[in-house]
């Protein structure tokens, strides 16, 4: 009775949130689950789940991978319940599951439950009904003030699964590869083969420089970026190989790679996009889908054209500026550099995090900003409350001082200043808190 009531409350509040969305300015992805959990705090343990319960987690790339997997599964006729808005904490999962649960049978009406999961919440969401499959995309420094070191996150994930969970892990990531030591259930690895952009030494401080099995210094053949690459311990058996699903022939500019002999079109020129497609392929193969089914749906996913705003003829790309995650942040910087033609960059923030009040700036010094010291970068507009801190890190990274413009009030017609004083496409590397005013100023300048 209690569970039926919780489901009804969840569904009723969800409908209410939907109706009142224009007024509340919230999508109701969390609140219904919050109140349902008040009725029964163990409600998620008492539902009947589908046979396939899939989680996708990691420090970055989990959102794109989840969207891609959901797209392929749906195109191939599966009924998938998944968190399309990316809300991945307990109350969000409760909202989603209960909205798709029968009041009478308590059964979730789906073939597959697919969740992008925060590393710290896997155990809370899938407590009694453990995941059947878990993809781990990578483990990097990520909001250390909230999560602790990557090893802490690793242990949380390990404690959230059991031997019945099949792991699909990124073998290029030495920190993730540690599951090969500790997980005794089924495990397969995916990865990306050597690419043209690889380096022989790391460009930023590398986590996992020592073997998690024997403590010896790890030897790398090459680095894709950060600590991702091809490595092995010179003293014991710990190594990247064997990789069951390997992406190769990566060409980020033409947005293609090969997986298992198939040409795959990916949806962006970021390396993490290549990883997302390889991870999705690995998972879908493990679920039993055929190459043809997967590749065809990959194509329909990638063919959706992104729409960009323009300043005259200059394209504006609002990039994901993931703070406190040095690999994600540096990937965006490298992406900007790799794009053809002259570029103007906007960079900055008013707050470090949306989740807590701390303004820990340590992560700025885990990023190689010298990437921006490139002749194709015309100007770098530095904005926000911490503009002088960014200015410092750029100068310490030997970026040409003459290219850096400190903006006092970015809310006041920033794009007009950019239009008249710089050239090339515009790449915005600002935090979500500063995106709005920039896009607003586009209306004024037009």
């Amino acid at each position, binding site marked *: 009775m209690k569970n039926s009531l919780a489901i009804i409350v969840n569904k009723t509040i969800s409908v209410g949130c939907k109706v009142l969305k224009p007024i509340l300015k919230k999508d109701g992805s969390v609140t219904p689950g919050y109140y349902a959990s008040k009725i029964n705090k163990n409600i998620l343990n008492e539902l009947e789940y589908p046979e396939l319960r899939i989680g996708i987690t990691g420090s970055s790339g989990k959102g794109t991978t989840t969207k891609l997997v959901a797209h392929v599964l749906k195109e191939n006729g599966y009924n998938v319940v998944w968190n399309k808005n990316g809300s991945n904490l307990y109350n969000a999962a409760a909202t989603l599951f209960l909205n798709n649960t029968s009041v009478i049978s308590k059964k979730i009406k789906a073939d597959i439950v697919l969740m992008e999961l925060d590393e710290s919440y896997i155990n809370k969401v899938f407590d009694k009904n453990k995941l059947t499959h878990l993809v781990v995309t990578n483990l990097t*420094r990520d909001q*250390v*003030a909230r999560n*602790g*070191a*990557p*090893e*802490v996150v690793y242990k949380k994930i390990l404690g959230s699964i059991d031997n019945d969970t099949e792991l699909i892990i990124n073998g290029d990531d030495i920190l993730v590869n540690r599951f090969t030591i500790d997980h005794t259930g089924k495990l397969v690895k995916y990865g990306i083969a050597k690419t043209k952009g690889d380096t022989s030494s790391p460009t930023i*401080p*590398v986590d996992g*420089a*020592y073997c998690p099995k024997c*403590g010896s*210094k790890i030897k790398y053949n090459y680095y894709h970026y950060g600590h991702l690459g091809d490595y092995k311990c010179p003293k014991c058996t710990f190594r990247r190989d064997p990789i069951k699903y390997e992406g190769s022939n990566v060409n980020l500019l033409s947005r293609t790679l090969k997986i298992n002999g198939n040409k795959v079109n990916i949806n962006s020129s970021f390396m993490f996009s290549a990883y997302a497609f390889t991870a999705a392929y690995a998972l879908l193969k493990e679920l039993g889908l055929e190459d043809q089914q997967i590749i065809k749906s990959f194509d329909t996913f990638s063919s959706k054209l992104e729409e960009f705003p323009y300043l005259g003829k200059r394209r504006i790309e609002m990039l994901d500026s993931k703070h406190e995650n040095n690999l994600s942040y540096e990937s965006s910087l490298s992406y900007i550099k790799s794009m053809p033609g002259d570029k103007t960059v906007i960079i900055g923030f008013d707050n470090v995090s949306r989740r807590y*009040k*701390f*303004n*820990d*700036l*340590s*992560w*700025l*010094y*885990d990023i190689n900003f010298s990437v921006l010291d490139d002749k194709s970068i015309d100007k770098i507009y530095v904005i926000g*409350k*911490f503009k*002088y*801190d960014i*200015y*410092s*890190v750029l*100068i*310490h990274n030997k970026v040409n001082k003459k290219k850096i413009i400190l903006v006092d009030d970015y809310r006041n017609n920033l794009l007009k200043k950019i239009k008249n004083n710089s050239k090339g496409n515009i790449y915005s590397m600002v935090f979500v808190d500063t995106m709005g005013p920039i896009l607003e100023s586009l209306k004024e300048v037009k």
Partner: protein
Amino acid sequence: MKSIKILHLYYDLMNLSGEDGNMVAIRDYLDNQNVKYEIDRLSIKDKIDFNKYSLIYIGNGSRESQELARQDILKYQFQLKKLFKDKFIIATGNSFELFGESIDNKECLNLLPFKTLYLKEYVVEEKVIENNEVINSPIIAFVNRNSEAKIKDHFFINKDGIHVNEFYGTYFLGPLFIRNPYLLNRFMEKLFKKNDLKIKNDYKNVDILAYNEYIKNTSK
């Protein structure tokens, strides 16, 4: 001209919180002063002669990294004991715990009189220390730790860390010298003095602007 030799110890282990920024701050300071210097980055399995260095710096690390460093540094216990009285050492974050008696009951260098215990929860703090005995300006600090050194006296900055002889240990982590240019200046005065060098006063630190802005914003 004499070259200043600096050791960045366990650079590939104790680097969790942007600690490379401290070496960048020191490097750029020395470049601006136009002095010759060498920065050696050494770690586990390297053979280290600590006598060669005017300054030794170690940064913050994860619990597992700290444990690897602890096991390694013990082999230098005798060497470090001999030179500890005069050696200029700066240890930020949990790295200074290595110089105490023990961490979670595991043997450490035993050069300083304190034991360290693990905490169940993390202590995360962002603060500005207005009045301190180290410099005449506020110190911007960030703390993120899950251990506690039981220090009774010889605190370094107010009630934080430890200062004995030429050893300076603090739980304040990250790019402390980037964020605190006056603190960097204080330590560089010491380094220059130890090397019979004089600081040129016309040096303009690029980090002063960020420092002033942060102090202004937090005092509102």
